C-alpha cells in the first residue's frame, strides 16, 4: 500500500469567490488504490477543493497533475477525461430520466443512437460487477436517497473513472446505509480505484480512510496515515490551537412550566408521505432540548409544523399554554414563538432585499414599525440601527442586500430579529451549520442566554457535539418518531448513535 504509485497531485490551489478566499495554497496528493479522507469543519474549504479537483471550479492559482502530467480542467468533462469524477452533496441526477439514462448521459462511449434495452442491460451488468443494487429502468424520482447515491456512483464507474470524489456522502444516509456504502467503497479500492472521502466525522474517517488530509479555514493543515493517528490528534488539527473544552457550556437547568407541547403530531412531507409520525415532545421554560438525528428523518417537517409553515395531518401543538395547532405563522409569533429556519438564505431571509426589510419581517405588522397601512421609514431605520448595534451584526450598510453578508452575520441578523420579539420559545434548526468558530460561539451564547433568562429552546442539529455542549436533554428522531431521550450528564454517544440508526432505547 505504501508503495502505491503516485496518482493525482494538487499543488498550491487557490480559489476565491467575490473576494472571499475558500482555498489558499492547498496541496493534496492521492495514490492509486487508496481511500483518502478530506477532513475539516464546515466551511474549511473541503467542498471547494473537491470541485476544483473535479473540474467544476477553475482555480485562481495552482496546478493539477495526473500521473505527473499537468492538466487544466476547464469543465467537469476535462476532469472526467482524466478519469476523475465527483458525487456532489446535492445529487446531479435528472429525476425525470430512468437510472440507465442518467448513467449513460454525457458518456462519450454512448452510441449516437441508443437502444433502450441494450442500455439497461449494460447498466444492470455494471451493477452486478460492483455489487450495487438498483433497477436500471426505474425513474429517478421514484428512488430513495440511498438509491440515488448509488446511481451517482454507477455514473462514475460507467465512465471508468479512477478517482471518485465523494462530498459528504454519509450526510444523507442512516448509519446502516452508510455501512453499506463503506463496504462498497472498500470493494472499489480493491479494484484499484482511488476514493476521496469528504467528511467532518472523525469516526467515519478513521473507519474507512487509509490516509487523511486535514483542512482548516481554506488551508491544508497536514496529512497523516490513518493507522498512525487517533481522534485527539485529528481534532487538534481540525480546530487548531484553540483547545475544545470538554466541559459543557451550560450549567444545570432550572426548568419551569411547559412552553411547547407537541402531542401525537403527524406531518407529511412534500411528496405526501408521512414524515413526522405520532410524535410527542415537550420543552419547558428554562431548558434547551436538542433534537439529534440524521438529516431527512422528519426534522424539517417537525420544525415547519411547529412554526406554522406546514399543516399537520394530525395531533396538536400547544404553545405557551395555548392550542396553536391551527394558528397561522404570525399568530404563533405573537404567542411567543421565535424560529431560526434551516435554510438561512432562502427561508430565513429574503436575500435580495436589504437588511432593514429583513429585520422587520416579524415586526412590520405592529407599531411603531407600521402605522395604519403604512410602514414608517424612520421607525424602520431606528429599529435597524438598534438591532445591528445590540446584536453586533457586522458588514452592514443600509440598502445592502443580505446576500452580500457573511453567513455568520446573516445568522446574527435572523437571531436578532427573532429575539427582538422576546419569544418564550426559540426553535432553531441547524443554527451554526457552515459558520466559523467565532460566529458559532456567538450563536451558542445567545441560545444559552435565552435559556438562562427563562426561555425554552428547541435546538435541531445534526452536530452531536454541539448538542452535547448545549442541550439539557437530547431527544433522537428517526423516521419521524422520537426513539429515546437522554438528560445532560448521562449522554452516551453509543446509544444515541444506535437510536439515530433506528434502534429504540432500552427502557
Amino acid at each position, binding site marked *: 500500500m505504501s508503495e502505491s504509485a503516485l496518482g493525482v497531485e494538487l499543488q*498550491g490551489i487557490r480559489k*476565491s*469567490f*467575490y*473576494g472571499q478566499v475558500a482555498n489558499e495554497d492547498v496541496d493534496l496528493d492521492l495514490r492509486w488504490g487508496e481511500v483518502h479522507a478530506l477532513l475539516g469543519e464546515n466551511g474549511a474549504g473541503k467542498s471547494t477543493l473537491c470541485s476544483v479537483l473535479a473540474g467544476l471550479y*477553475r*482555480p*485562481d*492559482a*495552482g*496546478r493539477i497533475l495526473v500521473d505527473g502530467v499537468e492538466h*487544466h*480542467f*476547464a469543465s467537469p468533462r476535462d476532469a472526467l477525461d482524466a478519469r476523475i469524477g465527483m458525487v456532489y452533496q446535492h445529487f446531479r441526477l435528472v429525476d425525470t430520466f430512468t437510472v440507465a439514462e442518467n448513467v449513460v448521459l454525457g458518456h462519450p462511449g454512448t452510441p449516437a443512437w441508443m437502444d433502450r434495452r441494450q442500455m439497461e442491460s449494460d447498466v444492470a451488468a455494471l451493477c452486478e460487477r460492483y455489487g450495487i443494487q438498483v433497477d436500471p429502468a426505474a425513474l429517478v424520482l421514484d428512488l430513495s436517497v440511498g438509491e440515488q447515491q448509488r446511481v451517482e456512483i454507477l455514473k462514475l464507474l460507467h465512465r471508468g473513472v479512477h478517482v471518485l470524489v465523494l462530498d459528504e456522502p454519509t450526510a444523507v444516509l442512516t448509519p446502516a446505509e452508510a455501512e453499506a456504502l463503506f463496504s462498497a467503497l472498500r470493494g472499489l479500492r480493491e479494484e484499484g480505484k482511488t476514493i476521496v472521502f469528504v467528511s467532518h466525522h472523525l469516526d467515519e474517517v478513521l473507519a474507512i480512510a487509509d490516509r487523511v488530509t486535514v483542512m482548516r479555514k481554506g488551508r491544508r493543515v497536514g496529512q497523516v496515515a490513518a493507522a498512525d493517528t487517533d481522534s485527539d490528534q485529528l481534532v487538534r488539527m481540525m480546530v487548531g490551537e484553540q483547545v475544545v473544552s470538554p466541559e459543557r457550556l451550560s450549567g444545570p437547568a432550572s426548568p419551569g412550566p411547559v412552553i411547547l407541547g407537541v402531542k401525537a403530531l403527524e406531518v407529511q412531507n412534500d411528496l405526501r408521505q408521512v414524515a413526522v409520525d405520532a410524535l410527542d415532545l415537550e420543552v419547558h421554560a428554562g431548558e434547551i432540548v436538542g433534537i439529534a438525528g440524521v438529516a431527512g428523518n422528519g426534522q424539517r417537517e417537525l420544525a415547519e409544523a411547529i*412554526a406554522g*409553515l406546514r399543516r399537520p395531518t394530525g395531533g396538536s401543538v400547544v404553545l405557551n399554554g395555548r392550542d396553536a395547532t391551527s394558528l*397561522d*405563522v*404570525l399568530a404563533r*409569533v405573537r404567542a411567543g414563538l421565535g*424560529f431560526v*429556519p434551516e*435554510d438561512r438564505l*432562502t*427561508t*430565513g*431571509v*429574503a*436575500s*435580495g*432585499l*436589504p437588511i432593514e*426589510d429583513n429585520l*422587520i*419581517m*416579524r415586526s*412590520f*405588522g405592529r407599531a411603531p414599525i*407600521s402605522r395604519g*397601512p*403604512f*410602514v414608517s*421609514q424612520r421607525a424602520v431605520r431606528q429599529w435597524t440601527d438598534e438591532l445591528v448595534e445590540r446584536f453586533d451584526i457586522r458588514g452592514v*450598510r443600509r*440598502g*445592502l*442586500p443580505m*446576500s*452580500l453578508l457573511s453567513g455568520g452575520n446573516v445568522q446574527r441578523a435572523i437571531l436578532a430579529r427573532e429575539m427582538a420579539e422576546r419569544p418564550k420559545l426559540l426553535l432553531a434548526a441547524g443554527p451554526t451549520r457552515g459558520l466559523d468558530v467565532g460566529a458559532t460561539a456567538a450563536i451558542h451564547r445567545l441560545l444559552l442566554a435565552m435559556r438562562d433568562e427563562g426561555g425554552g429552546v428547541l435546538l435541531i442539529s445534526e452536530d452531536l457535539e454541539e448538542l452535547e455542549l448545549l442541550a439539557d436533554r437530547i431527544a433522537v428522531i428517526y423516521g419521524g418518531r422520537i426513539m429515546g431521550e437522554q438528560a445532560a450528564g448521562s449522554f452516551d454517544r453509543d446509544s444515541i448513535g444506535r437510536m439515530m440508526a433506528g434502534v429504540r432505547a432500552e427502557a
Partner: protein
Amino acid sequence: MAPSRLRIPRLRLEPRGVPPIWLRLAFPVLALAGAGCAGAVLLLLTGFSPWTVYSAAGDAAFGTSLAWQRTLVSSTPLILTGLAAAVAFRMRIWNIGGEGQLYIGAIAASGVALAVADGLPSVIAIAVVLGAGALGGAVWAGLAAAPRARFGTDEVISTLMLNFIALFLMNYLIFGSEGFWRDKERLTYPTGRDIPESAVAPELWGRLHIGFLVAVAVAVGLWILLRSTRWGYTVRLVGDSTRAARYAGVRVPRRIASVLLLSGAAAGLAGAILIIGSLGSLEPRALAINLGYTGIIVAAVARLNPLAVVPVAVAVGGISSAGPALQTSGVPSELVLVLQGLALLVVAASELLMSNRIRFAPAAPAGAPSAAPAARR
C-alpha cells in the same frame, strides 16, 4: 507556479448592492440614447441621415405645443400599461397580458358607458366608466391569476394566450357581429357606437384630457403603495423569495393573485381612458396597436419604478407620435418599432451592468489559461 508566464489582467463582474443614484437616474436616458445610436447605424446603412431624421422626429414629438399635446395623449395609455407591467414584474410575475387586459378594459368601459352613462352627471359617469374598465382588466387578469394561484400554471403563456382571445373577442364585437357595441348605422365600415357625451373626458389643454392626470395619479399611488405600505412590503418579500415570504406569514398565492389583478386593473384602466378620451367608441383598429407590449418596454426602461414610468412613457409616447411625421421625410414609420425593440434590447443587456460592477481583476495567473472570470458571462 511558473514565474516566466505572462500575467493577463482580466475583467470580472462583482455584484454590488444598490446601483449608485446617478446611475439609476441616468439609466433610462442612457438606454434610450443607446437605442438611438443603434437606430442611427441602421439609418446610415439604409441611406438616411440620422441627424435629419431625429431632428424631424424631435420636432414632431416635442417641437410645438400641439406636438406636446399629441405626445402626452399618446403617452397616457403607456403610463398605465407600463405600470401594469412594472407592478407585476417586480414580483417576478410575468404578466405579458397587458394587451388583452387593455382590450377588455376598453370593452367593459364602452359597454358600461353605452348602457348607463347617458343622463348621469359627468363626474359620476366618468368614474363609473373608468371603474368598469379597471374591473374588466382585473377580471381578465384573474383568468390567469386563478390557475396560477391554485395550480401554479405558468402565467407567461396564459396571459399571452388571453391577449389573443381578447383581441378576437373585440374584433367579433365590432367586425363579426352586430351587437351592442357596434354602430349599426355605418354598415360599410364597421365601427363602434359613440359613447354618451357625459362620459367623454373633459379636456385640459387642447387635445390633452383628464385621462393623463388619472394616469399620473395612479403612478404616484402605486409608488406609495409599493414603497411605503405593509402591502407593498409583503409584495417585495414575495418578489424576492416566496419561502421567506411564507416564513414572514404572507399568504403567497393570495398575494400573487392580488398583484396580477392590480396589474390587470391598471391595463384595463388604460383601455377605459382611451375610450373616454381620444377614441370615443370601441375602435379595434385604434386599440390594437401593441400598447400592452410597449408598456413592457416602458416598465423595463423605467427599471420597474412606478414614478420613472411617467417620464419614460412620455419619451416613448413621443417616439410613437413622431412616426407619421417620419413617413413624410421618406423614412418608413416602422423605424419607431425598430427603435422601441432596440431600446428594450439595450435595457435588457445593460441590466447586468446595473447590478454588477466591472473590475479589472488582479492579473490572472497565466499558469491557468483556462481560468475565466468568476462570473461567466
